């Protein structure tokens, strides 16, 4: 079984809110210098889903990422966790895409890898939270797509996917190949082992340029966008929390109840 996992890097979403600023022109998010770049959390869940399937059925896991100057120490975590190969679409032409142009480039790269069984993506990215790239890949490749998976089983050329819904989940059967987007309910991503980290250090990623995947630079990245960013701005939080005090924590608790009663909240 061959599984392709789309992964991406991003600013650590656990960073304090004050770390995220917008530049004067309202065009770019400026991160505080101490915000680490990490593998996107949902990319890690997608990898974990792939590695669980590999544990159960064997096969090959290929991690695929896209961008410019992809930091090796971050992106190689996919290998350290247990992916067999790392393929990078790394070129200026791939930069600043939207969901559509990113999905198109990834889909064309996936096509080039040949007979795959399953394509996994995070349900959304922590930064832009669009949740569209996986579905875009499914559309470009005319594959069935199942979103927000909490569990994936594979047997007899089919996958059974538990898809998270508003009030629980539904079990969906899909023929393979298929695209599945993965949610955090899949379970905590594994930590890389020392052996995994050492192996990842030695392994070099495969780099593909637009010509390698048969696309024109005008079809991908910023040039291939269908949407346009008008501006970015920072929301204003009115921080005016009134702290309720007491001689002891217990008294503060009782005082809070009194105050909320006065406010008719309870």
């Amino acid at each position, binding site marked *: 079984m061959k599984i392709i996992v789309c992964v991406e890097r991003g600013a650590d979403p656990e960073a304090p809110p004050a770390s995220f600023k917008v530049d004067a022109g309202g065009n770019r998010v400026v991160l505080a210098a101490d915000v680490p770049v990490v593998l996107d959390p949902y990319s890690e869940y997608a990898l974990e889903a792939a590695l669980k399937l590999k544990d159960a059925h064997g096969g090959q896991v290929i991690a695929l990422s896209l961008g410019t100057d992809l930091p090796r120490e971050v992106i190689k975590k996919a290998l350290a966790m247990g992916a067999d190969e790392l393929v990078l679409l790394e070129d200026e032409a791939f930069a600043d895409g939207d969901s559509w142009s990113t999905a198109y480039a990834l889909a064309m790269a996936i096509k080039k890898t040949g007979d795959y069984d399953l394509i996994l993506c995070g349900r959304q990215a922590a930064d832009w939270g669009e949740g569209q790239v996986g579905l875009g890949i499914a559309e470009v490749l005319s594959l069935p797509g199942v979103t927000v998976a909490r569990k994936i089983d594979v047997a007899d050329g089919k996958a059974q996917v538990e898809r998270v819904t508003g009030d629980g989940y539904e079990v969906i*059967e899909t023929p393979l190949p298929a695209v599945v987007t993965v949610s955090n309910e899949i379970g905590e991503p594994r930590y890389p082992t020392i052996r995994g980290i050492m192996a990842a250090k030695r392994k070099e990623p495969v780099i593909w340029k637009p010509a390698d995947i048969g696309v024109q630079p005008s079809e991908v990245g910023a040039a291939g966008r269908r949407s346009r960013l008008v501006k970015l701005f920072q929301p204003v939080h009115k921080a005016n929390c*009134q702290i*309720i005090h007491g001689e002891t*924590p217990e008294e503060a608790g009782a*005082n809070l109840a009194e105050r909320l009663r006065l406010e008719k909240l309870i």
Partner: protein
Amino acid sequence: MSQNQGVMIFGEVVNGQLQAITKELLGCGRKLASELQEELSAVLLGSNLAGSAREAITFGADRVYIVDAPLLKDYQADAYMPVMERLVKQTAPRILLLGQTSIGQDLAPRLAFRLGTEATTDCIELSIDPESGLLERTKPVYGGNVMAVITGEHFPEVATVRSKAYSPLEADVSKRGEVINIEAEVEPPAMRTRIIEKVSQVAEGIRLEEAATVVAGGRGIGSNQDFKQLEELARLLKGAIGASRPPCDNGWIGDTAQIGLTGKIIAPDFYLAVALSGSSQHISGVSGAKNIVAINKDPEANIFRVARFGVVGDWKKVLPAFTARVRELAGEN
């Protein structure tokens, strides 16, 4: 400029009930349609839709397309996509809005891409740019720390709208509108996926999305057993119980209790956050709450930035005293 005209919303009906998000979309869609001086239509797929169609008119639709077929009873992309693709091509709306729901977030991107256009998901504000006439879509990014305004020049302009971002209009029972039945015409070979089972895990009691009062716990609660204290308080306040992501990931409470960007989006009158730091992704799910009250031992916790009242202290000491006083106050009535 495009030939496309009018605003269309994709409505959701569950067990014959027009969903709250759909009424909100009609409120939002009406505003945009009025600005454009164009028509607002709604499309409903499923079964048993006639009552909901009339209701959609009272909430603002000028026209409702209903596609009633057994195959459409439950949402499946393979069944809904060809129906929506055909309907949207035939009716050529300028704007197509869906809810940022389990269905909307699954359907909108595929449909947009197949139609050669694009979608913006999880929008909290939509407006028409007076100069270009294009739909400007505002959405929170980077966990709500930054807002992005996005537009596109492909039609229809597709967006999904976050729950509680817009209010429904007052129902106007005298409003007139047209209901049009459309044949589904889904060919069974188009169906690749199949729903084997649907599992509901909703706890009994008040629904989280509808509760006026919500008591929620975070990572600091520490265990399944400790969550029981919050449940007791929620019962006392006739509210619902919720949680940030860590308690759900740790199995202290069911996944359906999760509030946040990837869980439920709620807008209660009173939200009590206990031992919950208030990560950006969590705050995104309660930004519509009218009164946030926090109990947390860390005075720097992010939750205090959005709270109206707070107590800085160990919840294990603060909460029992709070609950006891709430009980006494309730007894005074």
